[in-house]
């Protein structure tokens, strides 16, 4: 398969790959929501755990970035 069909496949694949970012958004919201609910119950202990929250956000978001990378690669490098 050459030419237009490959292009079409690349574009459709890029659009499908973007659904992975929805999972990342849910994951990050989950982490921050749990942190917020814990912090509002125990505000004095919240400051020490902001670092852990950021690490959790980084891990959850990284996979969304991977799916965005796949979409970008399919759009512009195939």
């Amino acid at each position, binding site marked *: 398969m050459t030419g237009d069909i490959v*292009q079409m496949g*690349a574009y459709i694949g890029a659009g499908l790959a973007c659904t992975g970012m929805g999972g990342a958004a849910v994951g990050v919201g989950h982490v921050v929501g749990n942190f917020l609910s814990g912090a509002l119950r125990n505000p004095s202990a919240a400051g020490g755990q902001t*670092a852990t929250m*950021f*690490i959790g*956000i*980084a891990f959850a*978001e*990284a996979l969304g*970035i*991977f799916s*965005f*990378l796949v979409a*970008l690669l399919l*759009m*512009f*490098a*195939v």
Partner: protein
Amino acid sequence: MATETHGEAEVGLVFHPMDQFQVTSLFGADKVEWFTITNVTLWMGLTVLAIVFLMVFGARGRALIPTRSQSIAELAYGFIYKMVEDVTGKDGIVFFPYIMTLFMFIVVANFLGLLPMAFTTTSHIAVTAVMAMAVFLAVTILGFVKNGFGFLGVFWISSAPLILRPILALIEVISYFVRPVSHSIRLAGNMMAGHAVIKVFAAFAPLVLISTGIGLVVTPLSILAITAIYALEVLVAFIQAYVFAILTCVYLRDALHPHH
């Protein structure tokens, strides 16, 4: 679709969003070799200069009541010092200069890339992969030097049921080797994604010059969107540098104290 520079007369995007990531030689050479002075060289040099101006010249006065640059330098120093001490413990403070270098380079490179017409050096996998590989090799070698073969205890989760431990060990080994991959792609992907999105909105901004009817609606909205995404990118620039540094500290802590 090759990512060469695109001409102006296209029906699609006027600014191709991936053009800003091209590495071009500064002084006219056609082919980029390993010794060519490129825009990456220029912006990395500017990053180092900015850090030197902030930390060395800014804090040179050592006044008791700090000047503005000294205050910013002290804030950055104290922030990273506290983070390294909290995460890696007292015996990890030896590695504070390395973590500080990583953090300052990444945060200043990210911020400099936000200037208009600038080039973001940390958006290239080549740059971030080298940093992540250096962290991975340093942590692994340090782990074996400090703990001998006891370093392999980092894969043996003693807080899990005995039956699960071999399977968990296999999963831990795989995730240990995926660490440099995720470490580098997280930073490069975030930077590239942010700047590509800004460029995509920027491609819509001059629409009022092409077709005034719909342009009067689209142009203000796209300028608003560019501003909003730009603000998000300022936040992301700082957070990604912080996340890179704090994950390096977490890996260092695993190397220094491998027993769970």
